[in-house]
């Protein structure tokens, strides 16, 4: 790197060197969370509609299923509740990221995120953390309502449920990064976003006990262990180490692969000159 140009000098109070340390990043994370919270509060109808839609979907499943096959529903109700919880968490985390990229491109703010001294990937990671936090809060509310409606009780040890829930959702975040990257490169891929939601249902309900290799797919192992922890009341430290290992490897693997794909796609978009286009 040559340096023919003069070094930067702060001037007249308008400029101040960026703090990109952990403290600065914490400040960014706080700003992202505050922004989401402000928008949730400012547009309550939109926020409430999201909750009501999820709840209605569950009610249709529960009462509809009870009317058609009451015995089957009673036998699998715990599985349905855990599966529905994981599905709502996954959708919120996945869609929060992929839709967010699309909306930011539409708003013209995507390039502003890219030009952050924290780096584009880290800014998107901060937004993802905010998404996941929000999805866990909304998931807790939905779970409470589901238990209230069905009259069931479940083991909700936070030391077990939260870590497994986070690891279970991680592959969905990875897939969110993949689709976020594809949205940057190819723009209008909303129809593909919708399809993934149905794929998630299949993955969460996958018969892992029957076909053990399925545990390496996204969400499958998380769904299984979350069911074991919540419905059967097995604590984290009592779960088989090997099964937890699979959960950890798939969580980290899909997350890292998704993040790498996101990075590749944004570079691809910049090479093609379509970053921020919509």
């Amino acid at each position, binding site marked *: *790197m*040559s*340096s*023919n*140009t*003069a*070094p*930067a000098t*702060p*001037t*007249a*109070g*308008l*400029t*101040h*060197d*960026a*703090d*990109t340390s952990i403290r*600065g990043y914490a*400040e*960014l994370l*706080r*700003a*992202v969370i*505050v*922004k989401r919270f*402000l*928008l949730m509060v*400012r*547009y309550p109808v939109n926020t409430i509609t999201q909750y009501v839609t999820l709840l209605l979907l569950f009610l249709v499943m529960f009462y509809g299923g009870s009317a058609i096959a009451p015995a089957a529903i009673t036998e699998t109700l715990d599985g349905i509740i855990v599966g529905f919880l994981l599905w709502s968490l996954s959708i919120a985390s996945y869609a929060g990221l992929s839709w967010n990229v699309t909306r930011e491109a539409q*708003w*013209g*703010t995507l*390039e*502003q*995120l*890219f*030009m*952050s*001294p*924290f*780096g584009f990937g880290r*800014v998107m990671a901060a937004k993802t953390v905010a998404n996941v936090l929000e999805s866990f809060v909304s998931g807790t509310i939905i779970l409470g309502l589901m238990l209230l409606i069905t009259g069931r009780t479940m083991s909700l040890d936070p030391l077990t449920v939260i870590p497994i829930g986070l690891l279970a959702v991680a592959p969905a975040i990875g897939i969110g990064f993949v689709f976020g990257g594809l949205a940057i490169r190819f723009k209008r891929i909303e129809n593909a976003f919708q399809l993934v939601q149905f794929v998630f249902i299949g993955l969460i309900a996958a018969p892992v006990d029957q076909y053990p290799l399925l545990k390496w797919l996204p969400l499958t192992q998380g769904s299984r262990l979350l069911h074991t922890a919540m419905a059967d009341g097995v604590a984290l430290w009592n779960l088989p180490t090997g099964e937890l290992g699979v959960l950890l490897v798939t969580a980290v693997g899909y997350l890292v692969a998704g993040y790498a794909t996101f990075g590749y796609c944004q*570079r691809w978009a*910049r*090479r*093609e*000159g379509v*970053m*921020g286009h919509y």
Partner: protein
Amino acid sequence: MQQPIADSDVTAGHEPSGETVLQVSDLRKTYGSGDDAITAVDDVSFDVDRGSVVGVLGPNGAGKTTTIKSILGLVIPTAGTVEIAGVDAHAEPRAVYRHVGAMLEGARNIYWKLTVRENLAYFAALGGQPRDVARERSDRLIDQFGLRDKADETVNDLSRGQKQKVSLACTLSRGTDVVFLDEPTLGLDVEASMELRRELRRLAEEDDVTIVLSSHDMDVVEEICDRVVILSEGRVIADDPVTDLVGLFQTQAYRVTITGELPDDDRNRLDARFNADSWEHHGAQTTFDITLTDGDVLYDVIDVLRAAGVELDDVDRIDPDLEDVFLEVTGTGPGPETGGPGQPQHVASEDGEVSR
């Protein structure tokens, strides 16, 4: 934005620091490959001094946006280097984004559902600014841009001009000292445009902010830019101070008004020696344009007229503006030499005294 600046003084009296803060060298961007390859930017090089305002101009498709986005790293160039504040922009983009901000799509690049103050806080955090610094700067920017009574309103409720101001303030809230602006006055009414122009000049002059802007509005560019880089077909075809560019064309063309009939011989002599053209008759008066290689040659013209016995009424310099220069150098229209647009500026009176 409360202090009006007289138009004539808007660029006067400000000397950029002379430190090069942006250095673009041999920048090239080619899309596609083989026979389908399109070179949008072709070996573009220019420097920008700290505290200066530089306009990047060019006809549609000239490569302005690709150049600016390549500088910012939003487009990966095929070749060339960009240094900002001594840092290789493509090798260390995050280090560069400590200094650089951009308002690329006008009022689009802010969050319309957030208030002015919330936008400023968010973008400051995005720029890694500590909360106390950000809050202080936010207050200052709100005052500076005359947004105090709008600070807690959502951007959606503001006028277009106010949105543009918020967008610029958000760019500055990140603590940047090099700012890229794409069509900053597009869509603004005259008053809002004037306010924004004053603010941009003030930022450069008082806060030492370096501004690189692209605009189709030549009045804006002429008024606030110290220098312009003109692109055509991806190449730099002019890179000069605005005054030099305009001055280059200013020295050459005059409109002469006489009373009386000029004999054909004298008229032919003027045509041949001084490229006289655009002859027009208005009652007893005749006007014609001449293009001279040197202002002193004007005395020779006056001698011809005096010898012919006609009365010299007026000599106006055809004073080109930046738009004329732009049209001339990009070859997209008639320039002042060919009798194109331009406002005549009075330089001589009946007594033949030339005041240049």
